[in-house]
């Protein structure tokens, strides 16, 4: 089966079959959108919450939550999905350095909040979620079924 790897800041899409995978989600948040009718599924690997047009002119749309969600939706629509049928699953947003009291504390949490907000704006329901905590995650999205499997070091894998 075709497996596509989605690196930091990227967005990828598949239709009917295959797996979209992102490895090494720390504070990043993986977001999947799925239309079960047309079996269109897309994944973004979101790095930070809000785009910084003054500092990051050529950023990939998938890099920031505020640009990633609209870009994901557009891509899904182009492949035949309908916005009102899309459902989202999200994973990541961890805080890997729990003893650090400084700015990094909030990166994961900010990402989770921003992704949720931008999904709520376009009324896309979140049907699966595995976020926060202190551990990294791997996310695999099976296009045929819409199932997302989360694995982490020393933990049982789980379906969301």
């Amino acid at each position, binding site marked *: 089966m075709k497996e596509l790897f989605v690196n930091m800041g990227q967005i990828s899409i598949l239709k009917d079959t295959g797996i979209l995978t992102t490895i090494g989600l720390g504070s990043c948040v993986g977001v999947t959108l799925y239309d079960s009718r047309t079996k269109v599924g897309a994944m973004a690997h979101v790095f930070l919450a809000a785009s910084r047009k003054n500092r990051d002119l050529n950023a*990939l749309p998938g890099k920031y939550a505020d640009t990633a969600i609209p870009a994901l939706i557009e891509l899904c629509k182009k492949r035949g999905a309908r916005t009102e049928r899309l459902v989202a699953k999200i994973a990541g947003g961890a805080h890997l350095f729990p003893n650090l009291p400084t700015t990094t504390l909030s990166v994961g949490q900010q990402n989770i909040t921003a992704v949720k907000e931008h999904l709520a704006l376009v009324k896309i329901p979140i049907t699966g979620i595995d976020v926060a905590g202190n551990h*990294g995650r791997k996310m695999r999205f099976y296009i045929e079924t819409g199932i997302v499997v989360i694995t982490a070091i020393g933990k049982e894998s789980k379906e969301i």
Partner: protein
Amino acid sequence: MDAKLDFLQELGNIGAGHATTALSHLLNGQRFDLIIPEALMLPFQEVGTFIGGHEQVVAGIYIEMSGDAVGHMAFLLPLESAVNLVNLLTGEERSELDEMGLSALQEVGNIMIASYLNALSDLTGLLLMPSVPGVAIDMAGAVWQSILAGAQVADTITLIKAQFSTNSIAIEGNIIFLPNEDDFQKIARILGLEDF
């Protein structure tokens, strides 16, 4: 561009040299080989996969640098190396890192990074202060990605990587310095170099 990278590589050479010397002192004179540090400019798309072995378990120590210049430093090593390092330091035989082991590792990382920054401070006269070190044991990709997010990297990332290893015991690792773009212009000027 080459001049900038040469300059950064030299900073890396000095910093990492001091860091491995500090490590050697901690470990009763155990010798470490420093592979010539590399200074690199990478596009965002490449930096995430730059350390490789995404699912390999690593130990990562992370420090934010503040003071007269801002930057981020990371000390990354495979889990097995981290265990060997802690065993050598404590004279005990652990097979994994317990709380004591983690604490020891954090301290080693702290001393190495502080030595790196001290060397740069001595060179430039700038006050460079390390934060409390954060420590994580996890997938390499997740650790590295969290560090990059902490540094809020933009399109192009400049970094200095120094790799060290030792022959007698399997210990190897990387010290990575992510300087803030504006601040190393300041450092360059202090050292009498033209603007890049």
